[in-house]
């Protein structure tokens, strides 16, 4: 009997040790608030994060195997898409909105520029199914993955059996995206007292707190709510933002407030990518606001900034760039899995 107890407890220890090492602890700095994502429903593990990363970079998610998530969310651009004002998808189709940067997603409750998606897990469905993005559906993606030896292995590693389900796929994709935490900018180092601002950056920080912080709230540099920032409607798109979803006129022209982190990597700016340079953005906030019924109260009075103040503010904004995040090898294309570039691998060969 004693022997049995001993063997049993040894077994339990080994199992729990294994579970412990395979777990991934979600790390974030102490100056960040508590994440809103419910990790209890989707416990992070190294194998699931890895599965999510492979899915993120695999064009198998699109109808014709040509477009992956990374096509429009490149790690080198803080997971945004530079040079393109609007997203592009299969068959060279152009979408309706600017692909947003992906990081610090664990602190966000609503997704897309219009808030159409209420949970990170379900976000991936939108680009997968959009006819001008990946033009696919989850049912067919699951079927494709089920016949892939690569994914049989990856799902077995992650979930202890090779069964592919929509839930597992979506949760693994969430896991990878949750690990995209940007918190190593100069600003973060200053807050952690590991660095200090120059005089110019400090002046810019003061201006930022005065004019920008109520919407682009530190330390995430967005309060992740929705606002009308006074952009005139682009008549080629007629995009009314949140109202397209809620059908309430008080939501007209409300778009999700983007973060100001990593702006040097994520041009162009705004939901339709209309501004290529940060100077144009500052010009908009100081001289370009178009009044309308739903305009954010903070923008009802003109923001006056002298050219010197604009330079100071810009100096501060540049301290929000996080090169450690942008060049983090853990987030990059998984060469060890795909070998070559993803487009060179016929999906039926895997």
């Amino acid at each position, binding site marked *: 009997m004693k022997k049995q107890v001993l063997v049993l407890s040894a077994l339990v220890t080994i199992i729990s040790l294994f579970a412990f090492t395979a777990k991934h602890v979600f790390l974030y700095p102490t100056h960040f608030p508590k994440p809103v994502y*419910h990790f209890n*429903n*989707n416990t992070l593990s190294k194998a699931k994060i890895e599965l999510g990363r492979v899915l993120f970079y695999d064009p198998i998610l699109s109808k014709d195997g040509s477009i992956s998530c990374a096509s429009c969310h490149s790690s080198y651009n803080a997971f945004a898409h530079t040079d393109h004002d609007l997203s592009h998808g299969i068959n060279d189709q152009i979408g309706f909105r600017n692909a947003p940067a992906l990081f610090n997603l664990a602190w966000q409750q609503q997704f897309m520029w219009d808030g*159409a*998606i*209420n*949970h*990170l*897990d*379900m976000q991936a*469905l*939108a680009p*997968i*199914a*959009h006819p001008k993005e990946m033009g696919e*559906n*989850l*049912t067919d993606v*699951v079927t494709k993955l089920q016949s892939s030896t690569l994914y049989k292995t990856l799902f077995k590693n992650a979930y202890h059996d090779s069964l592919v*389900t*929509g*839930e597992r796929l*979506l*949760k693994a994709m*969430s896991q990878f995206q949750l690990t995209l935490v940007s918190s190593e900018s100069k600003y973060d180092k200053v807050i952690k007292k590991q660095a200090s601002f120059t005089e110019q950056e400090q002046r810019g920080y003061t201006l930022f707190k005065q004019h920008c912080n109520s919407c682009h709230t530190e330390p995430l540099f967005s309060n992740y709510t929705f606002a009308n920032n006074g952009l005139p409607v682009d008549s080629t798109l007629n995009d009314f933002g949140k109202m397209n*979803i809620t*059908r309430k006129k008080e939501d007209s022209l409300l778009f999700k407030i983007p973060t100001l982190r990593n702006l040097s990597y994520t041009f162009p700016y705004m939901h339709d990518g209309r501004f290529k340079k940060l100077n144009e953005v500052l010009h908009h906030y100081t001289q370009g606001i178009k009044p309308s019924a739903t305009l954010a109260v903070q923008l009802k009075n003109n923001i006056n900034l002298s050219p010197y103040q604009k330079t100071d503010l810009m100096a501060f904004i540049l301290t929000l760039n996080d090169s450690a995040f942008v060049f983090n090898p853990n987030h990059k294309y998984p060469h060890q899995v795909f070998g070559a570039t993803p487009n060179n691998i016929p999906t039926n060969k895997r």
Partner: protein
Amino acid sequence: MRYVVAIIIISLTFYLELMAQQAQISFTPKWSNETLILGKYYPISNSNDSIRVDVVKFYITNISLWKQGNQVYSSPVEHHLINLETNNTIDLKVPQQISFDTIQFFIGTDSITNTLGAMSGDLDAMHGMYWAWQSGYINVKIEGASSICKTRKNLFQYHLGGYLSPNQTRQQVTFAMANQHINIFIPFDEILQLQTLQNTPEVMSPGTQAVINIQRFKQALKPTE
């Protein structure tokens, strides 16, 4: 020692299994007096048009049994996806001693379930009952074609859902049920009315039309035993 425990557990499970009665809910689609067959054309009365129903899928949730106004049983499985192409019945394991006179359930998922992210089993988004462009479950999906519909390929598509006020689509249903089995007719000739097919052949987002159509679906249901 181990064998004894195992034998006790097995016999206890077997005993509980014996003690349970099987209650069953089934759904039968109808067109007038006929049982509707998916993909088959039916003539529409008072017109020269015909209609074909291809897809019928819907969620039945939170089933409970009642006796004289008191709840005596609630199903531990909260969400059941009915797909008339593959499965039209729900089996419940109800303890033997329980007697009941009424069944209650909901058509559609509750609002909290719509905000919890990726779910498993019948709620898995891979069943095509979750909107991609906007979060939320499609509670009832009816697709088909009719020469009445002035749409591409004469298709009609009703993807009825919506969990936010004021356009919540979840419907509560209460029927008398004294026996172990209840069969519920779904008369599609009442649900897919001429005017609806003509004026709103496509309802694919939350809103008043979704509410109107799901209410009509609910009201058309007819219990038989």
